[in-house]
């Protein structure tokens, strides 16, 4: 097949979906110049499909899910194996496998494909006080064994989340941890208060990778700011509060210790690492916001390392996150000192990945004749003197 210079450049860029788009643009239809000369949208008449769309977007409260049925527990591969862990102080889960925020929606979506009742817990999409439309396109780009994302915390706002998913969370058969994001301490407290009484919610995870409106510094970069948010939320709820640490902080261990001192019941290590891809053909960053968060297996060694560092500096439980695809990956985190793990990006490629991790951990406990999975937590840490 003859390849043009442009196609070769596109190959070099390796942004396959991007390439498809560029390729399509060239095929036919209006030229870009012609399209650029077009007028902006005038008022448009709603149609039948618009009505359907409106219903699906506005949506009444979701009360039923087209969920796959829960299998009888005694039929599951993990049955009879003690996988229970204390994922955060006061938060005992039947197994150490959670889903990572932003990769599992509100739990109802993947419930159409997998038995979510088998999971230790789910963490919902980052929730802010008010609705956020999110970031400009493009919001996702593929990287070696990973993805970059810049979604921009698109979510319907805390009260809408409570209204829309409050009824269904109680029926999902899996504990829900609400991921909280905001731009001031009041923002975090608002979200926690809005969802504290919602059935199914067992804990809160604070996303502190957001800029603070007063000063613009990331909450998660500064031990004092991170401690302020932790303390504010702890005062607002009796439920366990987990702080999700950002690897982009100059001193992650110092932030972890400050959160513990401020009353955090657990820590998640880690959120995404900042990264960027350039579209070589277009000579500009691929993501609409320029940079984004790197997730997926490419991140795993960084996440295991930080888990290992933080585990030696705090005494509260840690949830490991970053590129977990298999039970072996999960074991790396557990042995590095995590009490539980989150499966995130892997779910996009293989929606059964979180369940495979549970099955694999159960098989490991059996094969190693362990009394429980808890026996290997921190197994790789330096022995205390």
């Amino acid at each position, binding site marked *: 097949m003859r390849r043009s210079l442009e196609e070769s450049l596109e190959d070099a860029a390796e942004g396959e979906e991007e390439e*498809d788009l560029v390729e399509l643009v060239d095929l036919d239809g209006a030229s870009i110049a012609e399209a650029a000369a077009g007028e902006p949208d005038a008022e448009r008449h709603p149609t039948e499909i618009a009505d359907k*769309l409106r219903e699906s977007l506005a949506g009444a409260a979701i009360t039923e899910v087209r969920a796959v049925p829960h299998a009888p527990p005694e039929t599951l591969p993990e049955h009879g194996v003690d996988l229970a862990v204390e994922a955060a102080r006061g938060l005992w889960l039947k197994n150490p496998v959670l889903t990572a925020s932003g990769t599992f929606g509100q739990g109802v979506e993947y419930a159409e494909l997998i038995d979510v009742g088998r999971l230790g817990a789910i963490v919902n999409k980052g929730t802010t006080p008010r609705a956020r439309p999110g970031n400009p396109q493009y919001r996702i780009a593929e990287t070696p064994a990973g993805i970059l994302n810049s979604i921009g915390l698109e979510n319907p706002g805390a009260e809408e989340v409570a209204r829309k998913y409050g009824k269904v969370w109680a029926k999902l058969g899996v504990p829900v941890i609400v991921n909280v994001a905001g731009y001031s301490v009041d923002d975090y407290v608002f979200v926690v208060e809005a969802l504290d009484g919602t059935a199914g919610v067992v804990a809160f995870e604070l996303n502190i990778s957001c800029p603070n409106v007063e000063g613009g510094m990331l909450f998660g970069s500064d031990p004092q700011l991170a401690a302020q948010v932790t303390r504010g939320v702890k005062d607002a709820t009796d439920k366990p509060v987990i702080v999700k640490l950002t690897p982009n902080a100059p001193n992650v261990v110092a932030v972890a210790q400050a959160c513990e001192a401020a009353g955090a019941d657990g820590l998640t290590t880690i959120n995404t690492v900042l990264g960027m891809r350039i579209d070589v053909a277009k000579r500009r960053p691929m993501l609409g916001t320029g940079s984004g968060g790197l997730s997926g297996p490419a991140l795993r060694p960084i996440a295991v390392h930080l888990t290992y560092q933080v585990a030696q500096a705090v005494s509260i439980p840690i949830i490991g996150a970053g590129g977990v695809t298999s039970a072996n990956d999960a074991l790396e985190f557990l042995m590095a000192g995590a009490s539980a793990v989150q499966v995130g990006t892997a779910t996009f490629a293989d929606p059964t990945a979180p369940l495979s991790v549970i099955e694999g951990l159960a098989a490991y406990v059996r094969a190693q004749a362990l009394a429980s999975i808890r026996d290997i937590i921190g197994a790789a840490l330096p022995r205390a003197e």
Partner: protein
Amino acid sequence: MLEEGRVVANAQIGELGTLLAVRAPEIAAQAHAGQFVHVRPGIGWDPLLRRPYSFCGIDRRAGEIELIVKPLGTGGEWIAERHVGDALDLLGPLGTSFVVRRDTRNLLLVAGGTGIAPMRVIAEQEAPRRNVTLVMGGRSVAYLWPSDRLPPGVEYVTTTDDGSFGTRGRVTDALPALLGWADQLLACGPWPMLAALGRQRDAADRAAAAFPGRRTLLDAQIAVEQHMGCAMGVCRACVIVTSEGNARVCREGPVFALGDIAFEAGEPATVGVH
């Protein structure tokens, strides 16, 4: 649903891409034109993301689907290189589908590039019951769908940029002559093509009621593409701006009412400011 498909045929369609026929009875039984499958490009984690492909053929009786795969990038290449007998990890059918009205007598289908996929499915399904005209445009004849892979009875109108086959020009240039005839218009293709269609719709919207094809343009349905992550509605990577706010192409789409889509310089309008 997740289904392990089995490749039963692999054919090159000119420069359009590779046509894969895949045995996947459960997905075939539920698939509709406009919907897509999310295909895993390999068994490992690099490349990581699945690739979305619109159904290009749905044969419920044989339990088979067809997909057009462009062998671009490592993921697309891996999928396009699957041979007869190879397994493919499929997630689908996903998204919304085109709706052909019961009272439509004359159906106009508009395709650009791999946007032929859902149009070919509709042509197969609708040719026995109504008059179907398919308009397809491409860079040259090599980028057109072969007419021997269309059902009998479909009128096939083609345009090429270089005039190597059919009328020289863009696919949208061929539409004015057909709009007065058509009761319904369905389209799938690259964003600039859809944006050009949107401008024709805007013109019709401003025109008098007697404008030929006005109703057809106002009610047109389109299928769109967007960079996609999970395709399950959770990651919100694929959102576009519609008259109803943000919509996920993988869930609220990929089929939308043309009039609901906001365009911006021939691309989907996007949230915020670049």
